[in-house]
């Protein structure tokens, strides 16, 4: 069970995995996530489902190596199995016919955005997707995004590919050009989602964000993933992970994500020592 059927390196330290999980694949909807555990001593980590195929009985996950657990996943190969995959979890993203939708993705946020824009396109929305990354080699899933969108804008911070600048600057140009935008969805690093929301708030564009709070069980049991939305405490796992971006307290989220930073750093250093240094740039 939970065998890795395919694994592909999308960018340095960014992996695409197709994992056998027939029950999850059958019930998954855009916006859902799974909780995975690599082995018996592993932690439960939430990963958004980037694609799902009920016929093949598989789900697609995109994982960036940032800590010990994601490095462990990076070490796994096709044929290896996860100890556990539980899901689909979270509320599916509410996707309605609204007109023109802009999807804004930062870094690997493009992976969870994909099933959402696919569905937007399928139900008749005009889809404009803006994908940003630090540099050209970190732009992933370019072909898939172009196929799922009517218009695509790639942006790099260093100008090595496409638009030179942040995704928010590219979005602002669209708005200033007078394009009618009925809804936006932003997925990526917290500060990127926050900046996107600050911009769309000014222009009254409803914006959905997908929050990546720290979780343990992912089923509402522990409350570790609590976030403040519109002054109310919500659990990302059962009330989200998608929320009205204009109501989210992003500063609190950033602070809560950092709670275990010391432990995360320690675990990563120990893992790196054991493996003889960082493998980020291996192919």
């Amino acid at each position: 069970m939970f065998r890795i059927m395919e694994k592909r390196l999308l960018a340095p330290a960014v992996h695409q995995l197709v994992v056998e999980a027939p029950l999850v694949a059958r019930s998954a909807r855009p916006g859902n996530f799974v909780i995975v555990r690599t082995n018996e001593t592993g932690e439960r980590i939430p990963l958004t489902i980037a694609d799902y195929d009920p016929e093949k009985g598989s789900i697609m996950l995109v994982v960036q190596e940032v800590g010990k657990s994601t490095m462990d996943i990076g070490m796994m190969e096709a044929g290896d199995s996860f100890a556990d995959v539980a899901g689909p979890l979270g509320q599916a993203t509410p996707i309605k016919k609204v007109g023109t939708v802009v999807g804004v993705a930062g870094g690997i946020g493009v992976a969870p955005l994909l099933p959402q824009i696919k569905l937007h396109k399928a139900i008749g929305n005009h889809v404009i997707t803006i994908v940003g990354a630090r540099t050209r080699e970190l732009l992933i899933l370019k072909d898939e995004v172009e196929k799922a969108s009517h218009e695509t804008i790639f942006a790099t911070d260093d100008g090595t590919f496409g638009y030179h600048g942040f995704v928010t600057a590219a979005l602002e140009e669209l708005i200033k050009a007078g394009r009618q935008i009925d809804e936006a969805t932003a997925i990526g690093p917290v500060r990127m989602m926050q900046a996107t929301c600050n911009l769309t708030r000014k222009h009254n564009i409803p914006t959905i964000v997908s929050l990546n709070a720290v979780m343990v069980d992912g089923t509402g049991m522990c409350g570790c993933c609590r976030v403040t939305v519109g002054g109310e405490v919500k659990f990302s796992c059962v009330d989200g992970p998608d929320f009205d971006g204009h109501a989210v307290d992003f500063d609190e989220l950033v602070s809560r994500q950092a709670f275990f930073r010391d432990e995360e750093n320690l675990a990563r250093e120990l893992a790196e020592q054991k493996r003889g240094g960082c493998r980020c740039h291996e192919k």
Partner: protein
Amino acid sequence: MPREIVDRVEMPKQSPEDRRSNFREVALGLDPELAVREAKRCIQCKTKPCTKGCPVEVEIPDFIALMAEGKFAEADAKIKEKNSLPAICGRVCPQESQCESLCTLGKKFKPVAVGALERFAADWTRERKSASCCEDTCCAEPCCAEPCRAEPCRDESANTCTCSEEPAVCAPADGIKRPSARVAVIGSGPAGLTCAAELALMGYGVDIYESLHETGGVLRYGIPEFRLPKAIVNQEVDYVRSLGVRIFTNVVVGMTLNLSEMLAKGEYQAAFIGTGAGLPYFLGVPGENLNGVYSANEFLTRVNLMKAYKFPEYDTPVKIGKRVVVVGAGNVAMDAARTSLRLGAEDVKIVYRRSRTEMPARLEEIENAEEEGVQMFLLTNPVRIISDGKGGVAAMECIKMELGEPDASGRRRPVPVPGSEFTMDVDTVVVAVGQGPNPLLTRATEGLALNRRGNIEARDEYGATSIPGVWAGGDIVTGAATVISAMGAGKRAARGIDIWLRSQS
């Protein structure tokens, strides 16, 4: 009156100094000699009031009589006729307010130590059985009179049994002929395990679905190792498996599978929902989302289920400050406070808004906590949690309370004393003020009637729900309660399911 009757045998414990720095079990159990001595204290009175105090109807005097003769395996089998999880109940049941509170001997002297005896019978039998399970009968159930195999199946070199893979198949103990039917049990906590075991013993096919990666529910993620070793939970779950019950982990019914579909497709003819109380309440005071504020569920899940006390050997971390405050005074609060000590906290306080008399925790657990150095701040209520300016906790402001008129629960309502605010320095706050029902299954199951609080509505004494063929029991019906009351509900539901399935055939 002979001294043997007067003096109740007290179970040996680790000393408070030792145990506050390790996760090993605190209560060490009886030895055979002590067990027989205690069993002989039972006067075998005619009225047997103790049995009325047992939610799962164990025939207490009967098993104790067997123990008094040193027949421990027989005593264990006698208990298992009514209770599938005796090693767990012997440890975590509040006997002092159930069977033992009704003991005839207890009117003049101390009651018979029913819990300690139950635990001993279960432990003794299990330890003996793991070495040679197939020498006598297949599953220690009285229904299996025949040896399970003609050939010896013991691996002498490893001193293990080689046939443990195959579940024993029992004929129903009561000899009633039943229809062939499968039942889905949602949740592998005490309610689900009990319901599954009862149904399997009646001869039904049973599948348990568990959302976490491990079985046991609150027995696994909630109750700490030092009060209920996980090896015991494993063995009790193995026993339920040995009855032919299949357990599927990582299946979140309501998300992975849909209960209505499972029934509609005919995979199952009935279902039992025992999903527990899985949504923690918070205090609703400012500062509650600061780093260092945990729900008791998160704190205990990290430590118990994810083994964060072994970080970095295990990947899940838990952070504990030097000064810890646990808010609440139930068993969960005591568990969180005592876990904090074992993780290295120097100063651990319980903050509770009512007085000692109203503390919901078992007396034994309160005593254990105090012996280990946990301080009680009673008639005290948190007002706000104060930030250290870096996202963490620096202090907690509290207000003194006094008891007013009785409230809806019958307990005197605590009211704030104006102007009595004070501040305590603290690094970690654990909120243990109860839990509500988890919404994942209930919101995905069409036609399932809930009450105002979101708990499943049980319509009769068996726990029948608004959906025909679906029963529910345990915390998802009652709100957070005890392991044994959940087991009682699982058992009654099994009876209701049996009656229903027989009426359908």
